[in-house]
Every structure is written in structure tokens, then in C-alpha cells.
């Protein structure tokens, strides 16, 4: 669901195909019949934007037909936990959970907590990012439980009530999916789960680019927990990510709300004014996150070296504090209003690839200066003379730099792929001409800035001056023409971490300390470079006897390939079945063993009771597999960590042709809209924009086209922008295949050729037919092949937890003919 894997991850899709050859059943649930649908055993159409209704229907089916995996659910999930008396479910409140404040469009999540005494420290999920801030009080890591699951305040009973109305009839009404097909999916999943069998769910941006994207993934998580499909081989939920190291840029990260390794970024609107308070607020007493102070202090030591001391909070105040939402979308709005002056763009193309691309281009004209670093001239670099708005260059003030950069074979470096696997690529040749690696650019910019500020005694400059910045190799490699290239492995060694006194590499994150004696750039990556010359990401050894292939690359954390794999064994530590044997307790040796690195304390026996006092995973028993959660359990119900509710709930997209059939509340109560003149959003059922429009990619092009439209082979394979529409819609509008059409939203309009195809189908809804228009988004105004930009149609909006725009389900109109 939410993915066209055959098209967008073709080589990864070889593996589901191999599984199919061996008897696995492949199901594709999608608004559009695609290459993936063609290869699946079962194609199930669904109206764009209705994924939670579909998944909620599956959850309801599993619960009402007793298809859930009892031993797994009772022992490993929070099904038995008792929720606060103050909690009111969306079912009883028109689609809103308790704690909603319409003035601020946000939730106070206090009433979603487990029952028990008041919390020790103030928790407010609406201000936290990073790991789930699940609380510090004993009630949170040792909630009251009813293992019969009969207590009406138990998570299990709340779950049952919440999804009771998500019936096959309701799924058909909301999703437009025939009941018979829906029931087939439910039965296949239920039958293929349990001790002997597991099912996996794959998704991509078809889920995340919705105004409740995180909740769709949560719904899949609930379903997989109920079926016992988490932490087990052949199970799980696989995020199919779109860029070579987008997982790495999330982990490290280049994201505003996180520090490396999912540490929350300090913020002025939280109680983060001192390091001590930041760590107290951010660390969770129960679970592995209790170690957060070790990771944070080690990060500060990696960044500020000897200047980071206990007396100056290890340089904590040199890290800026957030003062609001500084995400890409919000920053774009601020840029369009002239509030951003300088912009550095590394291998990205917002003038074409980001939401509301027209507004993005306008924003670039408001800058004083912009630096674009790329292999090719992007739409972003060329906005001042080539944008469709037709500005006169003389009227554009922005000072623009286009710096040529290197591709992967022209530099050493590490990518983290979609399964958290770090793989090193070796430099094969020097980059051409003045092209340099991005590492070179950042390193030498930093070096110059340190020189420009040298001698400053201003406190605000001390962070920069104290930044450890020693990355040039001892001796440049004589093989290469570029002699001042920084050593990539030196950076990776800092990412891994070392002990400060003797500068020895630490073997893993278990060895990090909170007293300043260790330094570590990205704690979750620790172990990737445990000794000089030992780059684990560069390992390329096959292990034919073990399909896990543990010696190829390095997976974080600690080379574990399946997270929470303690759940692959039963509570007593034995495999659920011989067929699904993965990690188990060896009583003779007194430790966990198996095909993978056990994601559990190596010598903690299954029968170990939870300690009454202490911190961290000591508060978990030997059969609590979810070590990062305060209570050690998989969360069916999320008492904290989400801003838009503890249980996934069906809302319509911000723009929808229909009313919410399940609740009075139409759309997400907390998704962020940007109410600006240039960002109008259509109201529900707007007759001016009656059709759903969704965006996607094709195999032969790549995102906004920078890496594919300068390539003659790929451009020849897929040369032209098009819109896919159904024969029914084509007939209604008098459009023939290959006719020019114009697609419009309140933001903009674009023209392209019509591709009339039965791959698109209208969805019946309350006696009407709902049509969908499909748009790839690869073309632009630079490159060998050019065309209209689908992102011109998209609104600025933000899902509340992760700040992603909604472009998988919007509304549009279309007409025959060109745009002007």
C-alpha cells in the first residue's frame, strides 16, 4: 500500500517476486493500477486518501473474528494496559480525542496517558519531536494491566470500540473498494500470520505525503502487532525510501527538529534552557532512552572537543534553540515573505520538486544570495532567467552561485539504504574540472568561516571557533589530483565515537559515557568504525550459510538487521516455530543467539522479572521485547509521542470531494494549513475542483529530474509529461488520448498530454462517481526534455508530527486544451 514498488524500487521488488515464485501471495492496494498491480496476485483499488479506513477495517476484522495472535499480543503489546479515566475516544466525540483545543488546533495529551498517579515531569507531545516522549513516572513504565483484556479501560477494549464501525460495508463506502475484495485481503493476511507464518507490509510516500501520514503507518503497526508480525523474519513494516541515503540524512540528520541519532533538538518553547533540564526532560526513565544523557554529552564532546567541559554544560548553549516550526515548508513560506536572506541548497531542487513550486520559485527571488551545489544546472539554480513566471533577470536581486559537485564514484563516502544498511562507496576517479565533493565544500567553508571569525571574543562565536574541524588527511593520497580533499573516513570515525583521553575508537554505543570521557557524533551508528582501519560499512563479505548476510555492510543499531527481534521468540525464549526461527535463548550458554544480532541484552534470561527500582531496561522483564519504549511493549495505543491522537482515525484529506462518512470532523484537526492569499485550499466538495489528483514517479525518471533529464538514455525512454485519466472521465470531458489538457488547482494550472487508460478508474461514493487524475512530477524547465511541473499544483501544508505536505490526495479540475 502507498507504494508502487515495481516501478520505483525495481531491484528491491525482485525479492517479493522471488517470494511469489515460492508461493507467497502479493497484494497491491492502490488508487491506480500500476506495474506493481500487474505483478500482484490481487489488485485492490482504493480511493486516494482513504488508507486509514481500509487499515482500520482490517484491524476490526482481525479483532471481531478473533484472528489476532493471542500469545504475542498479551505478552508483547500494551493491549492489557489500563488507560486514564479522563480519556475520551474519537468515537464518542465526533472524531476528536479528549484534550483538543480548537483555538490552537492542538491536543493536550495528558488524558491519553496510562492510568495511575500524576506524571513526575510535564510532558507535552505537541512540543516534542524525536523519540516518543513516553513519560517518566512509574505509571508510564509500569502501567496497571488486565491480562484478561476485559477491563473496559484496557487498550484492547478501547481498540475494539474505536474500530467497531470500520466494517466491510464502511470500507466499501469510504474507500470505494468492493467488500468481497476487502474481505479477501483480510482473510489472506489473517491466514498468513501466526506462529508459522508472517506477513510484511511495504509502503512509500503514498502514505507519508498525506495530512495524517504518520497515523497511516501507525495503523499498519497496530495491524502487524495484532497479527504478531513485528520483530520476526518475513514480517514488519518496510518504508521504501526514495533517495540513496535519505535514511542517512534522517539519522544523522539534516532535519531541523532532531540532533544526530533522534535526540530531540533543544527548543526555547520546551524546558531546555540548561543541559541538565534538557536531559531530564528528554530522557525516559524506563527503556533504553534512559541512556540519552550519554549520547548527548558524547555528541557535544564530538562537536566541541576540549572546549566542552562540565563547567560550561559541554558547550550546550552553543547549539541554537528552536523557536518554532523551522521545517522546509514553513521556511519556504518565510522565504517568500522576505524573511530568509541566504540559502544553501545541496543536491535538492525546491523550484520544481517541493510543494507549491511556484511559491518556492517566488521565494528564491526574495533572497539576497543563494548557493546551489549540484552536478547539473537545476531549475532552482536557473530560476532567475528560466522560470515560467518570466521574470526579467534585471528585476531579480538574488546573487546566485552554482557550484559543481561530485557523484558517488568520485569520492569516498557512506550511504544508508532503506533497510538501515550503511554501505561505503570507494572513490574511483577525481571529479572533473572544478567539481568537488560536498564534503570538500562544507569542510572548506567551515575552515574559511573559522578564519573569518578568528580572534573574536563574542560569546556567540565561540561555538564555531571551538568546533572540532580536523579532517584533512595526514598525507594526501598521491593517486588523486585534488590534494585538499578531507578524509571521509576521519569523519566516519568521529561519527562512530572514541574515548577522549586516548582517542581510541569505542566498539559500540554501550561504551558511551555521560561524564565527558567519550565523544560520539551519531550514537546509533556507533560500531561502524570500531578500530582504525576497520570500516564496517566497507565490508563486502558474503555468508551463504546465513541469509541475513551479517557481513555485508553494517546495519544500525549494532548490526541488527531486524529491530526488536526478541519478539521472534516466545515469552520463554523459544522460537514461535521451527519455520520462523530467528533469535532465541540458549539456556546452556546463558545468552541469546540466532541468525541476527539479538536486539536485547545479551544475557538477560526470558524469566528475568522487571525490577521495581532503577532506570532503563532494568525496569523491563526478560519478555518485554520493545526495549526503546518506556514499558517495553509494542504500542497498539500511543499514550504519547503523537500530536494528532493516540489511535489512527479516518479523516478526509485537506482537499476532498466528499464528506467524512465516519465522523462529524471532516479532516485532521491538527494538520497545519498555511492560510495565505497564494495558498488557497479548496473546501470539501468544492464544485470548482471536483476530481482527486495524486502524484507519482516512473522508473525511467527520477524525482524532479535533475539526475535523469540530462541523461539521453532515460530522457528517450520517458520524454514527456502526461496526466493519466480514466476512459469515463475522458468521455465526460470530451478528451481523447494524447489531447492537450489543462489541470488546475486554486494554486496554479499546468498543461500536459492526456493518457486515457483503464489503469485509472472512477470510485463509486454515495451514488456518485469520484474521478482521479494521476500526475508524474519529473519534468521542468531545464534538461534535455522539458515539461510542466506537477508540484506547481500542490498546496503548502504540514502533517503535524513530521511536517510533510499532502500531495497524494488533493482536488483539481481539468479541461481540454492548453493552459493559454
Amino acid at each position, binding site marked *: 500500500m502507498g507504494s508502487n514498488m515495481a516501478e520505483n524500487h525495481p*531491484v528491491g521488488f525482485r525479492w517479493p517476486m522471488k517470494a511469489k515464485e515460492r508461493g507467497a501471495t502479493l497484494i497491491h492496494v492502490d488508487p491506480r493500477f500500476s506495474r506493481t498491480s500487474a505483478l500482484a496476485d490481487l489488485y485492490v483499488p482504493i480511493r486516494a486518501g482513504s488508507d486509514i479506513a481500509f487499515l482500520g477495517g482490517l484491524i476490526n476484522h482481525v479483532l471481531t473474528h478473533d484472528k489476532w495472535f493471542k500469545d504475542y499480543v498479551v505478552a508483547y503489546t500494551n493491549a492489557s494496559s489500563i488507560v486514564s479515566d479522563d480519556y475520551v475516544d474519537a468515537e464518542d466525540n465526533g472524531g476528536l480525542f479528549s484534550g483538543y483545543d480548537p483555538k490552537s488546533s492542538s491536543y493536550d495529551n495528558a488524558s491519553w496517558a496510562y492510568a495511575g498517579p500524576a506524571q513526575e515531569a510535564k510532558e507535552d507531545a505537541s512540543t516534542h519531536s524525536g523519540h516518543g516522549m513516553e513519560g517518566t513516572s512509574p505509571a508510564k513504565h509500569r502501567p496497571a494491566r488486565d491480562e484478561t483484556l476485559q477491563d473496559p479501560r484496557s487498550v484492547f477494549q478501547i481498540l475494539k470500540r474505536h474500530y467497531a464501525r470500520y466494517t466491510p460495508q464502511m470500507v466499501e463506502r469510504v474507500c470505494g473498494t468492493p467488500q468481497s475484495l476487502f474481505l479477501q485481503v483480510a482473510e489472506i493476511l489473517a491466514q498468513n500470520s501466526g506462529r508459522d507464518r508472517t506477513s510484511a507490509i511495504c509502503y512509500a510516500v503514498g502514505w507519508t505525503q498525506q495530512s495524517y501520514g504518520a497515523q497511516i503507518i501507525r495503523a499498519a503497526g497496530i495491524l502487524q502487532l495484532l497479527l504478531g508480525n513485528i520483530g520476526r523474519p518475513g514480517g514488519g513494516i518496510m518504508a521504501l525510501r*526514495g533517495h*540513496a*541515503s*535519505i535514511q542517512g540524512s534522517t539519522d*544523522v*540528520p*539534516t*532535519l*531541523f527538529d532532531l540532533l544526530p541519532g533522534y535526540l530531540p533538538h533543544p527548543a526555547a518553547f520546551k524546558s531546555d534552557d540548561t543541559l541538565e533540564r534538557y536531559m531530564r526532560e528528554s530522557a525516559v526513565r524506563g527503556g533504553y532512552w534512559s541512556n540519552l544523557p550519554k549520547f548527548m554529552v558524547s555528541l557535544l564532546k564530538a562537536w*566541541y572537543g576540549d572546549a566542552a567541559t562540565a563547567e560550561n554544560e559541554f558547550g550546550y548553549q552553543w547549539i*541554537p*534553540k528552536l523557536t518554532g516550526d*523551522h521545517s*522546509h515548508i514553513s*521556511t519556504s513560506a*518565510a522565504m517568500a515573505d522576505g524573511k*530568509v*536572506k541566504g*540559502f544553501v*541548497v*545541496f543536491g535538492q531542487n525546491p523550484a520544481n520538486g517541493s*510543494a507549491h513550486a511556484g511559491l518556492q520559485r517566488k521565494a528564491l527571488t526574495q533572497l539576497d544570495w543563494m548557493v546551489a551545489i549540484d*552536478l547539473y544546472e537545476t531549475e532552482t*539554480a536557473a530560476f532567475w532567467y528560466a522560470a515560467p513566471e518570466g521574470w526579467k*533577470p*534585471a528585476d*531579480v*536581486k*538574488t546573487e546566485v*552561485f*552554482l557550484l*559543481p559537485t561530485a557523484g558517488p*564514484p*568520485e569520492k569516498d*563516502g557512506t*550511504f544508508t*539504504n532503506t533497510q538501515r544498511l*550503511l554501505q*561505503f*562507496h570507494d572513490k574511483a576517479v*577525481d571529479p572533473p*574540472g*572544478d567539481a*568537488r*565533493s*560536498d564534503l570538500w565544500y562544507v569542510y572548506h*567553508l567551515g575552515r*574559511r*568561516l573559522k578564519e573569518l571569525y578568528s580572534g573574536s571574543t563574542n*560569546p556567540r562565536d565561540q*561555538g564555531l571557533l571551538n568546533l572540532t574541524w580536523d579532517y584533512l588527511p595526514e598525507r594526501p593520497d598521491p593517486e588523486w589530483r585534488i590534494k585538499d580533499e578531507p578524509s571521509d573516513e576521519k569523519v566516519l570515525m568521529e561519527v562512530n565515537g572514541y574515548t577522549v583521553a586516548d582517542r581510541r575508537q569505542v566498539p559500540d554505543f554501550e561504551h558511551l559515557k555521560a561524564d565527558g570521557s567519550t565523544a560520539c*557524533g551519531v550514537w546509533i551508528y556507533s560500531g561502524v568504525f570500531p578500530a582504525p582501519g576497520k570500516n564496517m560499512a566497507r565490508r563486502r563479505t558474503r555468508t551463504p550459510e546465513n541469509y541475513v548476510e551479517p557481513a*555485508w555492510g553494517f546495519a544500525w543499531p549494532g548490526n541488527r538487521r531486524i529491530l526488536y527481534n526478541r519478539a521472534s521468540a516466545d515469552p520463554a525464549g523459544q522460537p514461535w516455530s521451527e519455520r520462523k526461527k530467528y533469535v532465541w535463548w540458549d539456556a546452556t550458554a546463558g545468552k541469546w543467539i540466532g541468525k541476527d544480532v539479538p536486539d536485547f541484552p545479551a544475557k538477560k534470561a526470558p524469566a528475568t522479572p522487571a525490577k521495581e527500582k532503577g532506570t532503563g531496561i532494568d525496569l523491563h522483564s526478560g519478555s518485554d521485547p520493545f526495549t526503546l519504549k518506556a514499558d517495553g511493549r509494542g504500542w497498539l495505543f500511543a499514550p504519547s509521542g503523537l500530536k494528532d491522537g493516540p489511535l489512527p482515525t479516518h479523516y478526509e484529506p485537506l482537499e476532498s470531494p466528499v464528506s467524512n462518512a465516519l465522523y462529524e470532523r471532516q479532516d485532521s484537526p491538527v494538520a497545519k494549513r498555511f492560510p495565505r492569499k497564494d495558498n488557497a485550499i479548496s473546501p470539501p466538495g468544492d464544485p470548482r475542483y471536483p476530481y482527486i489528483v495524486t502524484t507519482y514517479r516512473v522508473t525511467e525518471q527520477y524525482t524532479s529530474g535533475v*539526475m*535523469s533529464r540530462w*541523461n*539521453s538514455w*532515460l530522457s528517450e525512454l520517458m520524454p514527456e509529461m502526461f496526466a493519466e485519466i480514466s476512459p469515463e472521465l475522458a468521455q465526460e470531458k470530451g478528451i481523447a488520448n494524447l489531447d492537450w489538457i489543462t489541470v488546475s488547482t486554486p494554486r496554479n494550472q499546468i498543461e500536459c498530454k492526456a493518457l486515457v487508460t483503464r489503469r485509472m478508474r472512477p470510485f463509486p461514493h454515495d451514488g456518485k462517481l469520484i474521478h482521479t487524475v494521476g500526475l508524474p512530477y519529473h519534468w521542468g524547465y531545464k534538461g534535455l526534455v522539458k515539461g510542466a511541473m506537477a508540484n506547481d499544483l500542490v498546496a503548502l501544508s504540514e502533517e503535524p508530527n513530521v511536517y*510533510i505536505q499532502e500531495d497524494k490526495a488533493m482536488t483539481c479540475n481539468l479541461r481540454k486544451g492548453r493552459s493559454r
Partner: protein
Amino acid sequence: MAVEQAGGQGLGPIGRLGMAPQPMSRESLEKKPRIRDADKAVPSVCPYCAVGCSQLVYVKDRRIIDIEGNPDSPINEGTLCPKGASTYQYLVNPNRVTTVRYRAPHSDHWEDRPLDWAMDRIATLIKETREASFVERTPEGKLVNQTTAIATLGGATMDIEENYLIKKLFSGGLGVVSIENQARI
């Protein structure tokens, strides 16, 4: 004569199999795999999607002559998709930018500039903008040490080491808060 060559060295293993040599044109005889004369094959990773297919970059005389799937990889076992299979042209391509291009405010054209000049100019602009916009404390007196007038974008196509230095320099060094990448899209 062509037949004799084919039976001798020209077809190598086929000759050794004892098959009867067939007449072949000189063109056929001179054909060879693109990678045969490579000096080395360097392991790499595909630059496109996140599956992480391993590639072999074939180099001759310090130039890339071909890029193929790496048969050793448990992920792709030597295969590549249409994009991955075209990685050669992503790198060896006359349309690549190989000089520093500069467009002065209000100018109507690009001009080439020396790399050092551009780096000095960009560092100066960053410093000037930071100086003009830096906020030490909020009106309520909270220490924030930040600037919202500079933003960076990108990183998902780049190495984790590069992302790490971007975050370290712009956040920990300069106080920039809007540091974002494609993961937000």
C-alpha cells in the same frame, strides 16, 4: 584467415571447446566487452533510490569507462534498473557543470569564476547575514543563539559524512535552525 584467427586466440574458450569455427567478419572478431580493458573495478553504490544496489565502476586511464551491477551484492546480485544501469551517463556527460558559475544581482548571464573566489565570497556572505540576523535572546530573555535568516536544504542524495558536517557546521557552529532535506518531502 579470419577463420584461423577465430579457431586460435580470437574466441578463446569457444576454440578450446573444439567447436567448428564459423566464418566471422573482422568487425565481429574485434568486438569485446566494454569492460575488458579496465584497469580496475571499484565497488560503489547506486546514486538513485534507497534500495542500495551495489555497482562496479570500471576505470581505465583514470576515466570511468563503464558502470555495472555488482554480482557479489546480496541486495541486487549484479542487476540494476533502467536508472541504475544509466549511472555511467549521470557521471560522464557533457551537460555536467564543471566550473563555478556565478550570477551577480540583477545580471542577465552566468559567468565562470575561480573556485577560491567563490568560496571566499560565500563565506563572507554567510558571515554578513549571520551578523545581521543573529538572535541571542528572545524578547522574554531566553537564550536561543540562533539565526532564521539562513537556511540549508538537501542531503538525501549525499553521504552521511557530508550530512554530519552540514549539521555540525551550520547548527553547532553558526546557529542556523532551518536545516532540512528531502526526507521532509
